[in-house]
């Protein structure tokens, strides 16, 4: 979090620095009018931002500290009770919550490696001198522009146990044709990860591709002159050159997978039982369907904290690894 903040804060600082010599004695009235104009420009966005981002952010913290119920007029402050409940084994919500956290955790652990490695390999292939590279890139990216509901109905049909096309195809080549792709473990995991890769791999592919194109071609040439083979070039030029992109992609992919909702909601309905009910599904259900709003708000903040920690750790680890590699 801090890293991003300093990164984005840098340009304005430079600009201010560049302007200093010109500013000289500040004429008050003009500068007040300038401030007013600037905030007039910002006002429409700030109204939305305060109402639908800042206010709910604070309101959510307040809710999580009360026993909020939509059926009561006055809400009672209960301190950290909702949080304590979540960390008390055996309380009403804690086991279900941590079960859903572990479901999300498993999904992150299995999906992220595929969502990083496959797009990286595809981007490397697309970065070769080939014909129709743009066409391939467009095709690979296309599913990403579709909504998850479309993805859900297409794959619901493909993966259906009785009349699904995948089982039908497996039967044609003599493999078992009754695999429960959307109704039983471990197949549900294969389906959820597979569908997610199919749907979103184009995004990471184009980001990797942009990263690869940004690596100075001279570096590869210099490596060739030194007699480096393809593997050595990959390790010594491509990997360090992709460092920032790699950190960006792993971080955003972990976050995206941790926010998974639609695939489970549509394909497996969280089942069998609650085996694939992700934490987002559980929070939405508790908060909006079961009217269990205060605990749900607390859960969303616990999730936020967990994701913030993971992001920071991931960022630190990767930076270290690359620095060690460079030495």
């Amino acid at each position, binding site marked *: 979090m801090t890293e*991003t*903040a300093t990164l984005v*804060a840098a340009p*304005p600082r430079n600009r201010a620095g560049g302007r200093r010599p010109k500013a000289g004695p500040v004429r008050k009235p003009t500068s007040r009018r*300038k401030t007013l104009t*600037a905030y007039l*420009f*910002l006002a*429409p*966005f700030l109204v*939305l*931002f305060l*109402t*639908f*981002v*800042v*206010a*709910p*952010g604070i*309101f*959510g913290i307040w*809710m999580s500290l009360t026993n909020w119920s*939509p059926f009561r007029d006055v809400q009672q402050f209960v301190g950290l009770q909702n949080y304590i409940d979540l960390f008390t084994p055996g309380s009403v919500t804690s086991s279900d919550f941590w079960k859903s956290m572990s479901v999300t955790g498993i999904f992150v652990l299995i999906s992220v490696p595929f969502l990083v490695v496959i797009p990286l390999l*595809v981007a490397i292939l697309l970065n070769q001198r*080939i*014909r129709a590279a*743009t066409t391939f890139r467009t*095709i*690979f*990216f296309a599913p990403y*522009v579709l*909504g*998850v*509901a*479309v993805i*859900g*109905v297409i794959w619901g*049909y493909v993966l259906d146990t009785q*009349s699904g*096309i995948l089982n*039908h195809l497996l039967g044609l080549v003599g493999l078992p044709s009754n695999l429960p792709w959307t109704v039983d473990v471990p197949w549900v995991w294969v389906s959820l990860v597979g569908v997610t890769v*199919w749907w979103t791999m184009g995004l990471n592919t*184009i*980001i990797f591709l942009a990263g690869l194109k940004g690596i100075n071609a001279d570096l590869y040439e210099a490596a060739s002159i030194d007699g480096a083979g393809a593997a050595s070039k990959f390790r010594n030029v491509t990997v360090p050159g992709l460092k920032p*992109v790699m950190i*960006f*992609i792993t971080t955003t992919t972990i976050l995206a997978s941790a*926010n998974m*909702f*639609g695939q489970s*909601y*549509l394909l497996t309905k969280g089942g069998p039982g609650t085996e694939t009910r992700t934490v*987002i599904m559980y*929070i939405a259900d508790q908060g*909006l369907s079961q009217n269990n*709003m205060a605990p*749900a708000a607390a859960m969303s903040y616990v*999730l*936020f904290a967990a994701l913030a920690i993971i*992001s920071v750790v991931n960022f630190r680890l990767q930076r270290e690894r690359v620095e060690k590699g460079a030495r």
Partner: protein
Amino acid sequence: MTAIMNTRRMPAKKAWAQVALYVILIALALVIILPLIWMVVTSFKTDADAVREPYSLPDPFSLEAYQTLLTSGQQPIFLWVWNSFAAAALQTVLILLTASMGAYALARLEFPGKRVVFGAIIATLLVPPVVFLIPNYLIVQNLGWLDSIWAITVPGAAGAFGIFFLRQFFVGLPPEIEEAARIDGAGDIRIFVQVVLPLARPALATLAVLSFLGNWNDFLWPVYVLLSPENLTLQPGLNQLQGAYSTHFAIVMAGAVIASVPVLILFGIAQRQIVESVAGSAVKG
């Protein structure tokens, strides 16, 4: 064709690598595209045919699924298409207006509190959206917006992406542009409307496309804030459709085609801008 001719001049090993490369890429492209083609093909089959002949081309070619959908009173798909268009367009306009003005101030004007405001906006990019879900539901409820187009357009326009995206573009403009206009006596508002906005047309167009796609495909939020069948958008609508016609594949696929054709057309027209801006904002950011 030309690729094969080129390989002739290469050593044999390289030629084979080239062939393998194309085989892998084409195989992958088929894996990606076949489910989409098959969605379209299935939607033109009769209901019975869709189950009996999953791989054949539609024979007879049938509009039965579409007719069933369009005449269904329970699943008013016409209304859903209209609702989706209206919501996506309205939110896009809102984002373009608010983000272009806000981003311009953050990129080109000097004022106290600028860094704090920008930092706060960017920091929210890191908060998982579920944190806002329940409080925003209550806020929208209190505004009387549940089950209306306002619920699925206004709160979503408060996202930081538009500001972030346009600010990057405005920062990159040379300062001479405004200076020249200022010498001619133009004020900040006139400079913004008559000089900066026209220059920003490509960036605005890209943001418009991305915003439209994002709203069109939104799923979780509309599932919970839209209640009556006639107010749904296509994404939650499709979910209902699948519930109602779970074994009628042709009908469900026809619904999926209706939901995806507009975005696929939009993608077809603007694919270069979409791909490059998405990749670009990631690599630069």
